[in-house]
């Protein structure tokens, strides 16, 4: 990750102040610091690379317009997640009418063994892709509320407190949604979660935090 993508909270607050004053460079730093997380969130909600890219652009554009409204009580990333969710849900809504499908799911890893990550067995890599394809399909069957909550908390690693702030609901609601989503995914996946596949899961790459 490049150096300009890493900022601490103090620097972020300073950049926000400058960006509110119209400093485009400061806002550009904020974009570079947060765009990866926003993109990852959008791609899991939308499952389409081009749309996720559009969503990221739209998210930061909307954030820039509404920067004066950000009061700093929540994390800036939480605020961005919220905008990203709104933008992504709007895209989903429009896409549902178009009824298009994309078979090339950008959420799925390439079926190539990666020795740098400890994977040396191509068969296992292929199995992992197959499993994640099933998991992605199962996630797509969840309702928007369950799906967005699951993506934020279980995939993106957002805390339940921040997820509650992002989605505008109590933490208890977040916990309930996570439990419900887990139960439904387990119901769909069923026997897929065998011991062998769990090994695949354990060997799969960890998302850098």
């Amino acid at each position, binding site marked *: 990750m490049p150096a300009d993508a890493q900022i601490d909270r103090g620097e972020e607050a300073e950049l926000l102040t400058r960006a509110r004053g119209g400093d485009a460079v400061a806002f550009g730093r904020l974009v570079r610091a947060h765009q990866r997380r926003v993109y990852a969130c959008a791609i899991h909600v939308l499952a389409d690379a081009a749309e996720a890219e559009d969503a990221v652009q739209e998210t930061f554009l909307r954030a820039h*317009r*509404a920067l004066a409204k950000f009061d700093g009580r929540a994390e800036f990333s939480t605020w961005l997640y919220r905008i990203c969710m709104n933008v992504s849900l709007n895209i989903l809504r429009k896409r549902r009418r178009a009824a298009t499908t994309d078979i090339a799911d950008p959420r799925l890893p*390439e079926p190539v063994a990666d020795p740098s990550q400890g994977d040396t067995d191509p068969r296992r890599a292929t199995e992992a892709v197959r499993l*994640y394809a099933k998991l992605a399909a199962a996630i797509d069957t969840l309702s928007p509320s369950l799906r967005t909550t*699951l993506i934020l908390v279980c995939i993106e690693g957002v805390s339940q407190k921040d997820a509650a702030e992002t989605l*505008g609901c109590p933490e208890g*609601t977040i916990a309930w949604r996570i439990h419900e989503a887990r139960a439904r995914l387990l119901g769909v996946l069923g026997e897929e979660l065998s011991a062998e596949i769990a090994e695949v899961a354990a060997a799969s790459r960890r998302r850098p935090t």
Partner: protein
Amino acid sequence: MSADALRRKVSEALDGAGGLDAPEHATLRAELTADEDSAEWARDAAKLDALLRGWPTPERGEDFFAALAARIDERVAADKGAAGPDLTSPPFFDDADARAAKLATQAGKGVEGLRALDAKRAAFSLDQLSELGGAAPPPAPAKGPSAVAPKGVAKTETPVAPAAPVVSSRRADESVPKDSGPIAQVSKSETMRAAAATSSVSASEETEEDVPVDVDTVAAVPALASSAEPAHPNTTRQAAEAPAITPPAPRAAVAPTPIRIDPRPPAPLRDDRVSLPSFRPPIAPLRPLAQDAPSTSSRRGWVVGAVAVLAAALVGVAVFVSGGSEQDAPASATAVATTAPAPAVAAASPSEVAAAPSQVAPPPAASPVAPPTAAAPVAPESASTGVAGAARTGAPGGIVSEARPSQARGAARRVRGDTDDLGESSGGGGAPSRPASPAAASAPAPRAAPAADPESDEPLPETPDRAAVLSAMGSVRAAVAACAAGRGGVVTVRVTFAGSTGRVTTAVIEGAFAGTAEGSCMARAIRAARVPRFAQPTASVSFPFQI
């Protein structure tokens, strides 16, 4: 502890630091040993969590993010701050899971939580009712007499509006939590409007803009409104099918009215013509939903209500009296006028043929493009507009000169729908401009839409053929080249088309422009390409552009 409660505890443990293996969950682990099913569920849930947290989403390269940031910088710099919906509020969900989550959260707070939820619903209900009717309604039992009436009784009660105000308000509150901020306020009004609307299409059009509402809001509301109250099957059908039959006045009519008991067996298809007003006993006087202005005093509301009750009672008595003698009649005049366009066509056509024979123009058999004479081009159009005009004016055979069928309103719109088909079918290929006989005129015109789409009759190709792909790519070549900003070379693009639409779903730029702003521009340009529909769900091609 029940299995469900145990699994919920497992979920809570998994959400916490350390997961299920944390020391503080020793008791839970011991409980799991006694419940093998829950223990297996816990193991699977832990595996699932590991899968989700370790999701190996393909990382995009630094070039991609650099280009993306540059593009954002450009857009921010060029942004004029155009007014748009505020997307910084929390997203609003109106799916069943969101409602269940809210209920579960309230239930987690105990009885007081559920009471608070219920009180909130009631408050919202009253708010909405006072907005609608101008007067705070007295506490009302949820069910009218029809809920407990015997089967023969229910058949005589006809709902007068597609969505009953009380039920719609309460249900709308369920789907729109009051504490959801400004977004919920927007959605709430949309929900109320949608619940009152007779068509879900119009409701969905109202929410077309980019607003942070849930994708299921519009779809859920009509379903809730229609399923809010258990009703006789006939009444449900009537509410869906015959909103135009009932006059607007009965929507305000609310008074206990004796229910007519019909000793005869129910006649399901004949109930439409019994246009009795809605008799919902305890509700305060409500004005029609179309009148949105709040009333100035409750007294005025009661006066309006009393007048409406009197009017409704008169209408009801009139229908009651006439209903007995007309019970076996085919349909009332109102029903004919609003629900059956075919007789109107039948009434119009013969007189048109007799009064204006010159309009039956000979078909342009020789040339597909008729010469611009005075009579010939008008003939096909007059066949439809004449009937539509007859329906609008109520005068059989009335010929109107306006040629825009979209201006027709109300019941005439339905007639126009059929007559437009007549016009379309007669206007193209030299067919007679109108049926030769009244009987033929009264026959319902076949819908031309399926036949007009040649693709629906022909089997689709499995994949788009090479020529179609070349044509599609050729159509966007100039736009792609324009994105290169003076740079040259070969750009290979991997394009995925959707079979159902022929549209591009994915365009991935490979090669020198991958991950650059130019590449993003190219991908955007390529998404405009279209191929004819095909049978496979998708088809991917790699196409090289020489720039």
